């Protein structure tokens, strides 16, 4: 069944988009990340204009983090004070991200910038997580396997860089994450969660809830800013992704609870890394079709 997207101005298959929402929602529920780093490239791959894909990411991540944040709120595991601090940084980053996004789009380098940033960001995080977790799995080979229980032994409990940072460091990272979220269509959960635990020593039980709270409001802000400045938020596309995403996330969260913590981290690391490699292929290999076209203005 096809539906015409009023902003992207093209028809898409409803079930394909719903399916993508479910698949990415499943992974995001499983790993407690937004899933934007998977969904944006998938959307671009099926022909959605990159600008629309990035801008429409906001409401999708907001919807799935609402579900997550509400359940953590019921369990009283959101630190609103920390969340507020993160929010201020996130908003500044978002504004900078949207400005950057619009500027890059104007000079026609948006795709290159998105691609390169994905390679760098996902490549480094993916390598780090895979490397560390593979080493842990090998080391733990002799130890009897433990089952993962809720609230403990999460994938991020065991990442490297166990350093202590000052508050300014926190602000800078949060601004960067907001920037990445708005500019690249990444929620930033996969960076924020390990950063909070390992760099800023936030108690693990409030980290996921607080990060979801922060991502939720940052993404709502990004949605409004994108809608106000580049008018690229597609309501129909967002709705399809949201519906698929929130359902997928529920099943993903249940599946995630069944997997051992260290295998879990290996999976997440490899997933992030494979997306990075896919993008690296675009930049580092000779393209089959070196030409591309962009419509710069239309007279209607």
């Amino acid at each position, binding site marked *: 069944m096809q539906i*015409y997207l009023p902003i992207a101005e093209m028809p898409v298959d409803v079930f394909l988009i719903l399916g993508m929402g479910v698949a990415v929602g499943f992974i995001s529920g499983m790993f407690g990340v937004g899933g934007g780093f998977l969904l944006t490239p998938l959307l671009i791959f099926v022909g959605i204009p990159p600008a629309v894909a990035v801008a429409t990411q906001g409401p999708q991540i907001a919807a799935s983090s609402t579900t997550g944040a*509400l359940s953590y709120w019921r369990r009283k595991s959101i630190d609103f004070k920390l969340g507020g601090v993160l929010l201020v940084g996130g908003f500044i980053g978002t504004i900078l991200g949207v400005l950057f996004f619009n500027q890059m789009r104007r000079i026609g380098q948006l795709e290159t910038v998105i691609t390169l940033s994905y390679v760098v960001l996902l490549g480094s995080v993916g390598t780090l997580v895979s490397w560390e977790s593979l080493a842990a799995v090998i080391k733990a080979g002799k130890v009897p396997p433990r089952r993962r229980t809720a609230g403990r032994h999460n994938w991020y409990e065991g990442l490297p860089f166990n350093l202590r940072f000052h508050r300014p460091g926190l602000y800078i990272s949060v601004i960067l994450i907001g920037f990445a979220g708005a500019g690249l269509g990444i929620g930033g959960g996969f960076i924020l969660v390990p950063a909070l635990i390992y760099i800023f020593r936030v108690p693990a039980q409030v980290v996921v809830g607080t990060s979801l709270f922060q991502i939720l409001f940052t993404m709502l802000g990004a949605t409004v800013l994108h809608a*106000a400045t580049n*008018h690229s938020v597609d309501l129909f596309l967002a709705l399809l992704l*949201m519906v698929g995403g929130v359902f997928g996330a529920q099943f993903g969260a249940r599946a995630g609870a069944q997997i051992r913590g260290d295998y879990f981290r290996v999976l997440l690391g490899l997933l992030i890394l494979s997306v990075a490699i896919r993008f690296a292929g675009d930049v580092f290999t000779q393209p089959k079709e070196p030409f591309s*076209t962009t419509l710069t203005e*239309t007279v209607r």
Partner: protein
Amino acid sequence: MSARLIATALLVLALIGTAGGARAETLIVSLSRDNILIQSNFTGERLSLFGVIQREGDEKGASAAYDAVVTVRGPRGAVTVRRKEQYGPMWLNLDERKYIAIPAFLAVQSNRSLTSIASASVREDLRIGINAQVPQQIVARGANDPRFREALQRLRIAQGLFRENPEAVRFIAPNVFQAFVDLPGTAPLGDYDVDVMVFANGAMIARGNTKFRVAKTAAEQTLATIAAEHGVWFGMGTSILALLVGWLASVIFRRD
């Protein structure tokens, strides 16, 4: 007196001349629809065009078979064509050329191949075919490079936005033809013009025009207008929707 005689003679000659030419064909074209409204289930549309060639004067003169070329052009816009080049280990968009007045949609349809309808010079003069319709690089930034123009046509053909179809026009009677225009789901919005040319023996003998418009329906257009003109409100509405969907899911899946 003699001047009058000469004038009369000239007039008579002129009349004989036109009668002898016997090429007073007129073309009437009619399109099945002149307004295409895009609804949420829009995936493309087939338009049909009918053309009738009316010949005046010499009815019995057995004229050669007619050929028809129907050119459909969408709204025009500026297009930037970029080329990836090696930069260190990376391939980046480094070179570009700009083209203006490129139709967003272009379909050249005929009853047989364009090369057998008219000679190259006639086709060039009348701008028949995709290649003739795509203007040369105008905004010069770097030397003229025909590869960019070729790439533009190749990419547009691959996207289904440019096409040449020598079988899309069918003569249902010696002087009546029908043409199909298939608009893809990605058809750009705007005004389209349809240029119909009739040929006999390789020369154009009649020409007609019509147009149609592709627009969103009231509901789709309202949404797009709100998104474009009241972006902040549109963003807030979308945000509220996101909160609502997230909240609904948490209610549905609540495990208490």
